[in-house]
């Protein structure tokens, strides 16, 4: 175990005075409000029958997405879970493209082929929303492997891209989590494993699911720092994120960060959310990360009430615009059905007439039977 791993095997306690500049503070605030307002609008649109399927909202956890992703460069990658809208937004995917995807429209970031749990953006290096527990972690590890490969094999000395993998407390009982901690530490990959520990799977309390609930401790077990941070405090998350991202960028290897957070809504919009104690919900609601940041910014004279109100208003308009855009966008045409199954459509093979089947006009029309 390296020195830093030993040193960081304790939860970090941070001094939060003067942690942020005015400009950074406003940017962070705006991103968190964007996430919250977007998700509230999703709930409305779901109940209005504009979007379908399983929709998992991020309310309450904004400090984690914003705290990490706003420190990343465009070239850095992010892998998410089924609760992925806000990660995509923080990474720069437009609210229009995400909302449109949720509406199942052609203008969605995945042309309406992904949906709520499968947000991708190659342009912004969003490697995906992954709907099964843990399956995004190996993919994120692969992107981190590419960064190392580019630097060491392809001799791109300036390639210092890092990857952040987000996942929940439930995932930390899954093999892929452990397997990837091992590989990332073994090869010193530039990756940050970020646990959004919101204390609950669907109806399974974290405490009933895991032998040792302190997830951060599993970092040092694999030879990497394990950090525990208050995931309801964006400034604290940011400080931890800065250190972990810097470490990865310098080629010093991975970090496991456990952010203790809470989801303000049910697991998904289909979850009646009957098991969580109202007192527990109230406890975390009182610690709303957006309210807390707002208070901090005002108390430290980093922003004025009208400035923050102006941001709220701007975001409201942005979300209204996203809904309008999504609503007016066309549904995918039938011709889209057979596109993107294979990157090279020759994968559909050769038909009885000796021609590649994808050359058949029925393929372009999406009416061929495959």
């Amino acid at each position, binding site marked *: 175990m390296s020195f830093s791993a030993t040193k960081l095997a304790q939860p970090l306690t941070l001094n939060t005075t003067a942690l942020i500049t005015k400009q950074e503070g406003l940017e962070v605030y705006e991103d968190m409000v964007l996430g919250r307002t977007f998700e509230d609008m999703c709930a409305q649109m779901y109940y209005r029958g504009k979007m379908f399927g399983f929709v998992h909202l991020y309310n309450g956890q904004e400090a984690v997405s914003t705290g990490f992703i706003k420190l990343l460069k465009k070239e850095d990658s992010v892998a998410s879970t089924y609760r992925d809208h806000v990660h995509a937004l923080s990474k720069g995917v437009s609210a229009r493209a995400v909302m449109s995807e949720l509406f199942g429209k052609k203008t969605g970031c995945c042309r309406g*082929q992904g949906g709520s749990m499968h947000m991708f*953006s190659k342009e912004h290096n969003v490697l995906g929303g992954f709907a099964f527990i843990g*399956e995004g972690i190996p*993919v994120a590890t*692969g992107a981190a492997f590419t960064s190392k490969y580019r630097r060491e094999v392809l001799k791109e000395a300036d390639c210092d891209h890092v990857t952040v993998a987000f996942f929940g407390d439930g995932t930390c009982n899954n093999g892929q989590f452990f397997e990837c901690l091992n590989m990332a530490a073994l090869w010193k990959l530039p990756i940050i494993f970020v646990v959004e520990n919101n204390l609950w799977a669907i109806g399974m309390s974290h405490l009933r699911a895991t032998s040792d609930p302190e997830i951060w401790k599993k970092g040092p077990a694999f030879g990497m720092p394990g950090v525990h941070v208050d995931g309801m405090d964006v400034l604290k998350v940011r400080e931890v994120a800065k250190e972990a991202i810097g470490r990865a960028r310098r080629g010093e290897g991975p970090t496991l960060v456990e952010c203790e957070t809470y989801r303000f809504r049910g697991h998904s919009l289909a979850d009646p959310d009957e098991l969580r104690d109202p007192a527990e919900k109230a406890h975390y609601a009182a610690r709303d990360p957006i309210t807390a940041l707002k208070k901090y910014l005002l108390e430290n004279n980093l922003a004025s009430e009208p400035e923050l109100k102006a941001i709220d208003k701007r975001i409201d308009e942005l979300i209204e615009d996203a809904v309008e855009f999504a609503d007016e966008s066309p549904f995918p045409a039938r011709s889209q059905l057979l596109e*993107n199954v294979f990157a090279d459509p*020759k994968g559909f*093979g050769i038909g009885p*007439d000796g021609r590649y089947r994808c050359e058949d006009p029925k393929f372009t029309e999406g009416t061929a039977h495959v």
Partner: protein
Amino acid sequence: MERDPTVCVMGEDVGHYGGSYKVTKGMAEKFGDLRVLDTPIAENSFTGMGIGAAMSGLRPIIEGMNMGFLLLAFNQISNNCGMLHYTSGGQFKIPVVIRGPGGVGRQLGAEHSQRLESYFQSIPGIQMVACSTPYNAKGLMKAAIRSENPVILFEHVLLYNLKERIPDEEYICSLEEAEMVRPGEHVTILTYSRMRYHVMQAAKTLVNKGYDPEVIDIRSLKPFDLHTIGNSVRKTHRVLIVEECMRTGGIGASLTAAITENFHDYLDAPIICLSSQDVPTPYAGTLEEWTVVQPAQIVTAVEKLCQ
């Protein structure tokens, strides 16, 4: 790998050990430990890592030390290899090759003698090929590496000892085309991988008995080369399928359906499909032999078809 520095290999013991069947022998010394990466024994995760590497610009070849172990990676192969190009709206490509030794070997027991074609064939977005000779092994491997699609390449544990003189100059085989092994007039025998050799053994007997079978190694298990297969059916009007795959939901079952759907009018007799038995491959040599198709069964089936 010399041609394209983004091509890399990952899997258990592919590096220093040279691969469990020595497929990557000497490559770690030549290309280094990162390009020929020895991974921990964690199939689902290193397969997923290969997929993530492919999404971000590399062209990994992922080896299942034994193909059966890839059952542990089924989630990554199905959800991410097969579907992610589509769910991402075409944004991310997954140019990986997943390969390894499989099939029924010599008394390796049930778990090491799996026929996984049937398991993998319904995954959308994946191509599957099976090699059967040194020549097509090389040609298909190159094609698979250069393909923009994820490709599963099936190798057979009992075929690694084959020797053949192959051309010095570069060649590649099409991932979508079948191989005409022996042209003939009386019956079309469709086969692949190791069963090609059982078929050829049976063909000798059949020729001595006055039959002229056409033998096609379908090679492309998904999609089928319906052109080559169709031309043969139109000529012989009789089809025998010989495979090592499981009978239920196997390649033969899909092939039967495809031929019936496309060439029913040309058939003079119902298709016969000889598959291996739907049993876990037994350890005992005699039982194992009765699990897979033997040349004598092929001869009998052709005689029945041509009555």
